[in-house]
């Protein structure tokens, strides 16, 4: 029985450093190659020694596919390709290819320049790595080699995020990457056709959550900002540079436009500007509204949002500032926060999760006095709000995707074990398919029962049609006789050239073409009649290849009979 093997090197019962190995139909594919945010040692990258102890990965892997540009999905890519060594193709979508190097470079800078690590990949390595990337389009079937083909589907989540279908022959696997089943302000919802893969590898970050409508949250967010600005207060929104930031920008920008507001909105510069540029370019990857209106105006060409300068923070009057980083642990967002924290008119909105120990986490928990850098205490008077804008599918979304794709098996990754357990039960209960949740390094094997396609010769098919009923019924198997030829990895079903019936048919067709003026009948009892002359074919079991042809005629038809016998003695023409 053929089987598909899946081994997570990262993201198995865990979130971070997504890296999943798939062996299907003799091909090995690596899905994502991410880093773990939580570690600064060797554990931050997937353990590539699982694939091979020494030597390059090229000979073990047929291709690498990156689902989207988040570092936990692509952060280890230069390390793997340049330092461990991989020269094969790396597939990613166009936006991912564009934005990924920016993030990798940023990541490298922080690790090497700020933290001073040495044994790390260089800028050149990132460039070299990106040279190996082959960009793919949505719904484009890419032939990696003769047998392996991949196809990308829209996944929402972030710009350029894709789900991939990997197919070898009749076996297939779908890997979702991170995806979102509800559309947001700048991206659409994930979509896949009913491709019925053998395994669906899906993320399960929010396996135990069913989320409320996004509109309420958006409205709350806008109301908060609006009220504060109307009061003359300043709003600080700490964000990560890419992804949610753009969504919030669009949200505020359209709101400002709709409500005719005048207060300035700033965005702290940096890599955002570059990234925004790509958002402008890849309009086809955004949602319906942006796609439809970009002819009049590209929504990412912000009218109200301007670049931030650090001197602006002291300007009087209301303003809204997006600043990095998102957890208020350092950088510009922290500086602005320190300036504004003392005024109760101001507000800070945390749009995402904050790690324990960061200032973001402290203020969210209601801490009113902060010690910053061990010196002065900072009194927090400004309002603190929390708004979660997450772009992962919730439990219902995951179920919805499963329903869309109708997979035969499901494999959960990118989530916590406990939560997966719940989802696994639910899936098995409601879809009645088996569900797996391997840990890192654990291999899941799924036996497949692929249907073997066989080419059938047209002649055989036509003969079957003539003999059988009106239409082939897809639900009923039917037996037919023929010869199966296995040659060059292909299977062909041909009409058996050596059966008696076939010989007779050939004789029949031959005679029919030669004796145009005579009535020639192919009778169902296995004879051919030419006028009154009967022709039969028989052979012995010992020597099936020797055919005996019997001709019988009455004296009246002597002339025709002898003509026929001489004709048949000459043999059949080669064409038949």
């Amino acid at each position, binding site marked *: 029985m053929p089987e598909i093997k899946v081994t997570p090197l990262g993201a198995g019962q865990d979130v971070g450093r997504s890296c999943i190995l798939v062996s299907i139909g003799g091909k090995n594919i690596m899905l994502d190659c991410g880093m773990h945010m939580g570690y600064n040692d060797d554990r931050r990258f997937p353990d590539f020694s699982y694939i091979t102890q020494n030597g390059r990965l090229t000979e073990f892997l047929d291709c690498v596919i990156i689902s989207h540009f988040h570092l936990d999905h692509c952060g280890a890519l230069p390390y793997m390709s340049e330092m461990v060594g991989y020269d094969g193709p790396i597939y990613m979508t166009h936006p991912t290819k564009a934005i990924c190097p920016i993030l990798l470079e940023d990541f490298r800078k922080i690790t090497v320049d700020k933290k001073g690590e040495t044994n790390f990949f260089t800028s050149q390595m990132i460039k070299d790595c990106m040279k190996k990337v082959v960009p793919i389009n949505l719904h484009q079937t890419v032939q990696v080699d003769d047998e392996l083909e991949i196809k990308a589907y829209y996944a929402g989540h972030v710009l350029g995020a894709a789900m991939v279908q990997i197919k070898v022959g009749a076996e297939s696997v779908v890997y979702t990457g991170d995806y979102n089943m509800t*559309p947001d302000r700048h991206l659409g919802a994930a979509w896949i056709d009913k491709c019925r893969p053998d395994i669906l590898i899906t993320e399960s970050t929010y396996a135990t959550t069913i*989320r409320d409508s996004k*509109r309420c949250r958006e409205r709350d967010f806008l109301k908060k900002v609006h009220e504060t600005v109307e009061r003359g207060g300043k709003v600080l929104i700490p964000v990560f540079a890419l992804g949610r930031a753009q969504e919030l920008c669009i949200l505020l920008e359209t709101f400002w436009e709709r409500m005719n507001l005048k207060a300035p909105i700033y965005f702290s510069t940096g890599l955002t500007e570059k990234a925004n540029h790509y958002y402008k370019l890849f309009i086809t990857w955004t949602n319906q509204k942006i796609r439809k209106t970009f002819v009049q105006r590209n929504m990412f060409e912000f009218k109200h949002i301007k670049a931030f300068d650090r001197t602006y923070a002291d300007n009087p009057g209301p303003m809204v500032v997006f600043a990095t980083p998102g957890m208020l642990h350092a950088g510009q967002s922290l500086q602005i926060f320190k300036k504004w924290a003392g005024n109760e008119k101001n507000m800070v909105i945390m749009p995402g999760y904050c790690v324990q120990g960061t200032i973001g986490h402290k203020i969210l928990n209601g801490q009113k006095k902060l010690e910053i850098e061990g010196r002065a205490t900072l009194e927090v008077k400004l*309002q603190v709000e929390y708004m979660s804008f997450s772009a992962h599918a919730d439990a*219902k979304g995951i179920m*919805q995707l499963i329903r869309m794709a109708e997979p035969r098996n499901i494999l959960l990754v990118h989530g916590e074990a406990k939560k997966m357990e719940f989802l696994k039960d639910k899936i098995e209960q409601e879809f009645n398919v088996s569900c797996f949740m391997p840990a890192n390094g654990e291999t899941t094997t799924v036996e497949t029962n692929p249907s073997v396609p066989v080419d059938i010769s047209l002649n055989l098919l036509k003969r079957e049609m003539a003999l059988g009923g009106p239409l082939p019924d897809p639900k009923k198997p039917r037996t037919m006789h023929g010869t199966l030829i296995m040659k060059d990895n292909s299977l062909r079903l041909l009409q058996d050239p050596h059966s008696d019936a076939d010989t007779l048919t050939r004789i029949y067709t031959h005679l029919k073409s030669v004796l145009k003026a005579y009535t020639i009948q192919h009778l169902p009892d296995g004879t051919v009649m030419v006028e009154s002359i009967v022709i039969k074919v028989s052979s012995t079991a010992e020597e099936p290849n020797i055919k005996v042809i019997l001709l019988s005629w009455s004296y009246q038809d002597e002339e025709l009979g002898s003509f026929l016998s001489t004709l048949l003695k000459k043999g059949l023409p080669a064409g038949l």
Partner: protein
Amino acid sequence: MMAAHLKKRVYEEFSKVVQQHPLEEVPAKKLRLTKPSKSAALHLDLCKATNPTDALQYLLQFARKTVEAESVEGVARILLEHYYKETDTSVRLKIASLLGLLSKTQGFSPDCIVDDAISTLNNEKSHQVLAQLLDTLLVIGTQLPDSVAITQRLIEVACKHLSDTYFGVRNKCLQLLGCLGTVDKPLTKESDATTGTSGAPTRDVQSVISDYFADQDPRVRTAAIKAMLQLHDRGMKLQQTIYNQACKLLNDDYEQVRSAAVQMVWVLSQLYAESIVPIPSSNEEIRLVDDSFGKICHMVSDGSWVVRVQAAKLLGSMLQVSPHFLEQTLDKKLMSDLRRKRTAHERAKELYASGEFSSGRRWADDAPKEKVDTSGVNLIDSGACGAFVHGLEDEMYEVRTASVEALCLLAQSSASFAEKCLDFLVDMFNDEIEEVRLQSIHALRQISIHITLREDQLDTVLAVLEDSSRDIREALHELLCYTNVSTKECIQLALLELLKNLTKYPTDRNSVWKCLKFLGVRHPTLVLPLVPELLSTHPYFDTPEPDMDDPAYIAVLVLVFNAAKSCPTMSALFSDHTFRHYAYLRDSLSHLVPQLRLPGKKLTSGLGSEACGPGSGSVESARLFLQDSLAHVSMLQSLEAPGAQDLLDFTIRDLQRLGELQTELAGSADFCATYLRCQLLLTKALQEKLWNIAVPLCLKQNAMASAAVKQILEETYKLEFLYSGLETRQVATIHHVRLQAKALQLVLTARTKRGVDPLIGISEKFIQEVESFQRLFMSELPHFQESFVEKLLEVMPRLVACKPLDLVKILQTTLRQSGFLHLKIPEQIHRASATIIEPTGESDNPLRFTTGLVVALDIDATLEHVQEPQNTVKVQVLYPDGQAHIIHPKPGDFRHPGPGRVRLITQVYLSHSAWTEPCQIEVRLLLAYSSSTSKLSSPKPAWNESTEGLPQTESSIEGTIPLSKPVKVFIMPKLARR
């Protein structure tokens, strides 16, 4: 190509010889090929064609021409003849399609070619041609719906070919069955024998079609469902047995099949709503409509958006569904990390209930509550669960719009559901696409009779007032007019936000005032406790008098006064200046400020009793007054009696005043007043002494009379086209007055012009008009006794024969003798009117632009009771030099905010040569009319024995009626600087 042309020419010339050919061949058929017909030419062309490409070319050329009904059969026979000879499939295909096309020819009955068309099927090998032939048969069949025999034969043919291997043939067969099949008659036995299908000996069309629900080809499956739907559309009752099959098709792999299947399930749910179906894998049973509702709800989260749109739309029409299932559609159980969580809607409700509305959300305020029993969580939505939650959050705005629409329809029929979907609709106010926002506001307005808004909900609704889109704001004002709120805080909040809106967008003034008017009318008791605060009165101190011109202050007053109307105690809280302001506003904004009964105040009414009547009574009494006045007038037999004209004068004045005071009756009052004025003018013109004086002496009087005639004519056009709701009788009366005026005109012309020649034309025309009057208003003639027309008609034979001068004499006497025709008051008459809101005409800043270029002027106007405004309303721009331009606004510029009301928001382009100084141009709206589009001429007279004369078009007069007051705009075209 050239050769082909030449060849054709030749045949056209000799076609007389050739045309006999088909006649001889089929002598049995009666063919009337009188003209040199195309059939002959085609025949020869086809014979000459050496290769299929040529033949195809001829056929294509032929297809572009029209064929007369009488030569269709000949052409069809020639085509069939060639069909048998033709070996090339594409040519045969084209011939088959041409046959179908020809069968559609008006006036041709295709029953004569049915047999031939059917027999062609038997020998056809090509599947494509077969499909086309069946299509042709379908056309023939639909052309002959009454012929049972032919239909039966066609159905047999279709059944026979259903087993074809090519999907196109099967598709066409199914289509044929759908279009022609009958349910009540089972297919005959021999048709079954020919199809060779096993099973029951007699089968009806439905079971035959339903066999193909499981066809291998999705296109055939779709065609089968569509055929079934077609049967339904034709009024056949579908059997309930196909319900299960239809439900299975909902899970098809192909979206077209699913899309059709959704429709079919819906159709069945409407047909067998109350049937009981079992729930699979359980012993329970539910109503079919509930079951199908659940299934269609499921389709709202389908993979294809086309299907989603369709499903969402259909949900709106499933009103029989049980409330339990209906409410599930909005259900969404939230969960976070396996713990139950409340939705934002629930939280808002609780917060509000605890009295702590508008507190900011804290970190972990939405912290999950109790642990969820894992076995109880159902992640797959079974049935209707959360269908609308999905639909409203869909990626495609088409789906969202469809969901809002459906939600609105369902909520209109169920109050409790309306209550539930309120939060969701309010959420949609925040959609990213304006269309969706607008629609959800409209939807909320439609269901608002069922609901009372909570304060927090109102708050969210009001936030939209700041929207920069005027449409949205106005839709919201409209919504607030219909909204019920629960507390006085709500009123305060609404007022506050509306005032904010007023300062931000001053152009919304009228809309905001109107909105407050209704708010006041709806909630008098809630406004009452707010009055001191609103009017900033103080128990001890006098407060400064507010500025009367402040729109915000007027807004407050409008709210208070309208509330005071049904709350008599309120006026005790007013201070002195409030009463003064009331009097002022009552006069200046009478449509916004109602009549109040104020203690110790004299009512400012000039009409005595009827205006004093409170509330609804006043309308009744006003109506009585209207009738009384008209009755008084109708006492008059002739207007020449002494005092009669005075009475008329007074009545006209009274009616006009009544119209101003009673908006409900304004249309009727104005209409009557105008009519009476016409009569008065006519009488006056006739009364002039001119009739006895010699011609040269009465130039002045003549001038006066002809001016009167002109005015009467104008007024009659206004009467006819400006008012809606007229009955035939009134239109006839108007036409009658017009006729009189025209007669007078004729008499006057006869007196002023010398010679008979010019008179001949005019008098002929006049007689024609009398005739057309008679034709148009035949049924009304009994009401015209003793009238001008009746008298004319009596002497009609003489009129037609006599000379123009005699005619004039007859007219002169008839005019003077004819009595005064009384007006029957129409039930409900509305006068079309328009107000230009923008430009206001108040600006002193000229609009500067360079000559030779254009400047766009924004126009915003409201139209009331205008029928078909897209065709009739024009904008006129009048330049100081007398140039007038008429601009036709685009149909898209007209919006419909409410019944009977239309809003025109458009831009007109101005341009002019250079001026030295800014000058005013006038902009106004016109109502274009043409008497041929008169309300009566639309149904064609059945007695059109005389079609040669076209009196209607001949007498059609096009013109325009000013619809609005002109607005002046300063403009200043400057020379271009070089």
